[in-house]
């Protein structure tokens, strides 16, 4: 029992739920959320691997995940802009 890290299970679960949601959900916003779930699972897995260094956690995966969080948010913000535009195409040109 002690050999299984609960966070490893959580990382695997997050990626799996994300994949499932991405395949099954139809609303684009839900798909965006699903992609973010997969991303969060990947971050969790990376940080778990970073713990394996003997003297303190490995800073390189930490920095990569930090970069990843910002990139994920900016990509999601772009996706949200696309969704807003797609939801209301009739507003074109009425500035």
């Amino acid at each position, binding site marked *: 029992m002690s050999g299984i890290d609960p*966070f490893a299970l959580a990382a695997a679960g997050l990626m799996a739920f994300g994949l499932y949601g991405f395949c099954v959900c139809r609303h684009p*916003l839900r798909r965006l959320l699903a992609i973010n779930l997969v991303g969060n699972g990947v971050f969790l897995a990376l940080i778990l691997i970073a713990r394996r260094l003997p003297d303190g956690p490995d*800073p390189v995966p930490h*920095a990569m995940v930090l970069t990843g969080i910002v990139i994920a948010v900016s990509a999601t913000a772009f996706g949200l802009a696309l969704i*807003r535009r797609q939801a209301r195409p009739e507003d074109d040109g009425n500035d």
Partner: protein
Amino acid sequence: MMLLDGVLALLLLLLAGRCVTAASLLQAIVAFIVLGLLLALSWVRLQAPDLALAEAAIGAGLLGVLLLGTWRHLPASGIHHEFPWPWHGMKQAVSALGGLALAVMLALALHETAPEPAAAGETALAQLDAAGVKQPVTAVLLNFRAYDTLLEMGVLLMALIGALIVRRPLQDGSRIAPATLLSPSLARLFLPPILLIGLYLVWAGAYSPGGAFQGGAVLAGAGVMLALTGLLRGASVDGLWLRGLLALGAIVFTTAGVLLVPVTGHFMAYPDGLVTPLMVLIEFSLAISIALSLLLLFTGTPGLARSRP
């Protein structure tokens, strides 16, 4: 503490499941936001306080506000309830099996992989004295893997440009003035401590968890608060100064990298004596650009203007 980890992981799984199977869109979004909060706690438990800060500010906070804002903008007709449960159809069942298989393989992979010291991380820790900052994660971000950070700044700007291209034309004056006087006074009360915390986090990134991204996100949060309470609004005109500030991080980063090539012989290598002041300069300019980009991604406009009371 072991028990705490177990409960935390269980709640993460529960919320992830809820996020993809919720009937209404808002339920999915709320589950995702709470998932972000719990993820921040998980980073704390996984000895990554830097990530806890970033997740609190960017992952749960700004992303949550963005998601709720988009939810609010969707026309009611476009949102139908979905019931994406595995027994609902063939596609659902196959996807669930696929997801399950993926989960089992990943869990095995994470469990089985032999603990093997990573060369890059050990080098980074060993070279920390030369980096000009005492915090290993900041050192990796700004010095050892500076390319990553520069390109990340580029991605952030690209996302902003993309969002501005597809934005709906702004109807000036259509923003609703807040009906309650409470929220603008909240913003006025909160603004000084937030700005202080944001700047402190940027500054403290050199020796404790924090840095340009966390600090920049907190500063962006201050701007978002002003925008949400009607003190600041998006404008469809932008000034040169605003564009300059948006590009400042990338410009300072690249210039420092290029100008010092004759001294050090490498792109983005910094001479020993200059390394600490350079790190601080780069960090602050990055923080300003990050804060502005995130704020404009929120307002979805190329410019900003003060609202008249």
